[in-house]
């Protein structure tokens, strides 16, 4: 039996029946990593010994538990911008040096309390800034479907690890599309919950008004299971919501009758890959066949979203990254005085894309430019949020492609930063408005590369998003296809 190909719910079932043990499952995952990661390069740090200990402990608990929690004994990969106690955390940057966090962030604590096994830390674009995992200070991760292509970013390592069965599931973060776009590139399910649904405590901050943690899984049922464990108020995160967490698995009814689906015309633009448009429109027809009521809608300010995002997110990032100063942790350069120490530590520790965004963010916040850029962008952001509020008066969900193209070649977009930024066009507005959205597979292009469908819901309506995604997935079975590694 190919243990590493199991989903959370399949593995949980076998663990409960004592058909397999967590130690066997965990060992199989590490063997799979050893056999494939020289090609995929999904992982930065592996936690083998700790993982086996966690697996043994899970097996003990499984002996005395008739109804174990779904994550008990399940090997999960964690993006390397989550703080993990005692386990090196790099954020794919040189500036953190050999930083070993003195605490677990809330998501990691919740995973461990649920009995999950932490396999290791996955690669990302440095400080979560990027759409391809090429901005990692260490090495690029490769797409398991075609090793010359990007896995997407910034959660490229997590996406590739799930697609390659190098873990049963993973967690990532999404600020401008960083869970959804790599999920689309790698043919897996990736969800960004509503802003405030999952705690940001212990996530290395990029843009604090948009960062969110989310599940990256092999199917939608797993997404619901993992989200259930992650969601909920956290006193340590003052932006986390007090709203009760519904039973997400119970939402997977398979019933889409009278579901009102909006398809925004601004998301079908010239320059998008024809096969992506075709697959997305075909997916919408599938939803109609299942009883949904489809209507074209308009999100008029879509074309301004990239400009708004790259002002607001870089401004927030420039502030969040001021703490990397070489004083209390991380890399400190040898220099003649305090100012030189700051300037050289940061120059040597940060990569080019991070520096570019810090510079842009500092500029738009600086005296003389704040009103023209930052304040202006925040006003347009209100308008973008209003566009969605208007749309949700007439729809329950909004359906779009996740990205304008399938995964491009490694190195293809690194020459022009603006070209890379424009590839985020379909995911970015959702972060600006704080809405929940999922990406799941809806087909393949002529080169065999996965195509992603994005389903967007209203604030805190993850249940309807999951219900829609699950029904589509079960009717089409794209998720059963796996890359040949």
């Amino acid at each position, binding site marked *: 039996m190919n243990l590493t190909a199991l989903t959370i719910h399949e593995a949980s079932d076998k663990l409960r029946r004592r058909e397999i043990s967590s130690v066997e499952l965990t060992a199989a995952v590490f063997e799979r990593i050893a056999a494939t990661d020289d090609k995929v390069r999904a992982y930065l740090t592996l936690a083998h010994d700790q993982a086996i200990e966690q697996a043994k402990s899970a097996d003990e608990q499984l002996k005395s538990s008739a109804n174990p929690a779904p994550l008990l004994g399940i090997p999960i990969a964690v993006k390397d911008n989550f703080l993990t106690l005692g386990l090196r955390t790099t954020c794919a940057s040189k500036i953190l040096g050999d930083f070993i966090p003195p605490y677990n962030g809330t998501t990691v604590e919740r995973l461990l309390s649920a009995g999950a096994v932490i396999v290791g830390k996955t690669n990302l674009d440095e400080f979560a800034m990027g759409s391809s995992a090429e901005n990692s200070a260490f090495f690029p991760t490769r797409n398991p479907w075609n090793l010359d292509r990007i896995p997407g970013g910034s959660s490229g390592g997590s996406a590739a690890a799930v697609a390659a069965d190098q873990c049963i599931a993973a967690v990532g973060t999404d600020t401008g599309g960083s869970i959804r776009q790599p999920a689309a590139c790698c043919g897996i399910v990736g969800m960004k919950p509503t802003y405030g649904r999952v705690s940001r405590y212990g996530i290395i901050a990029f843009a604090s008004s948009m960062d969110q943690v989310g599940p990256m899984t092999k199917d939608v049922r797993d997404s619901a299971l993992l989200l259930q464990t992650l969601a909920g108020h956290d006193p340590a995160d003052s932006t986390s919501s007090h709203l009760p967490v519904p039973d997400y698995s119970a939402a997977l009814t398979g019933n889409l009758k009278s579901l009102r689906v909006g398809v925004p015309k601004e998301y079908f633009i010239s320059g998008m890959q024809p096969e992506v448009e075709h697959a997305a429109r075909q997916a919408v027809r599938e939803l109609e066949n299942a009883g949904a009521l489809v209507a074209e809608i308009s999100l008029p300010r879509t074309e301004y979203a990239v400009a708004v995002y790259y002002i607001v997110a870089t401004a927030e990032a420039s502030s969040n990254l001021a703490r990397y100063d070489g004083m209390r942790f991380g890399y400190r350069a040898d220099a003649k005085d305090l100012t030189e120490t700051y300037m050289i530590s*940061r120059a040597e520790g940060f990569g080019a894309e991070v520096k570019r965004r810090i*510079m842009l963010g500092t500029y738009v916040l600086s005296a003389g430019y704040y009103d023209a850029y930052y304040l202006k962008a925040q006003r347009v952001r*209100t308008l973008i949020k209003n566009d969605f509020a208007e749309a949700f008066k007439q729809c329950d969900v909004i359906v779009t492609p996740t990205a304008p193209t399938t995964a491009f070649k490694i190195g293809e977009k690194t020459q022009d930063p603006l070209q890379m930024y424009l590839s985020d066009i379909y995911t970015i507005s959702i972060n600006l408005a704080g809405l929940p959205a999922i990406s799941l597979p809806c087909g393949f292009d002529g080169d065999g590369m996965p195509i992603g469908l994005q389903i967007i819901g209203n604030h805190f309506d993850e249940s309807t998003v999951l219900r829609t995604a699950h029904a589509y997935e079960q009717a089409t079975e794209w998720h059963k296809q796996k890359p040949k590694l």
Partner: protein
Amino acid sequence: MKLTREEVARVALLARLRLTPDQASALTDQLDHILVYMDKLNQIDTANVEPFSHALDSAHALRSDKVTNRPNADALLANAPDRDETFFKVPKILE
């Protein structure tokens, strides 16, 4: 050009980033290109629009001013580039 070399130097100082002349030159071009793109926001009239402040419009979260964490100086100093007992050791701040 929206952005001059002098402005890039000013911003680099604000951001505490030492740039080589080549990096400064490349950044000037790249940031200028990006800022020209940002100009499209001026197509929108935002005269009566409030700036976005929070996705949730929720009340500010406050707690009582009580210490709830345990003293943990050693763990917190473990990653220090330089330390002296319970202090982070840093370059001289006052001249």
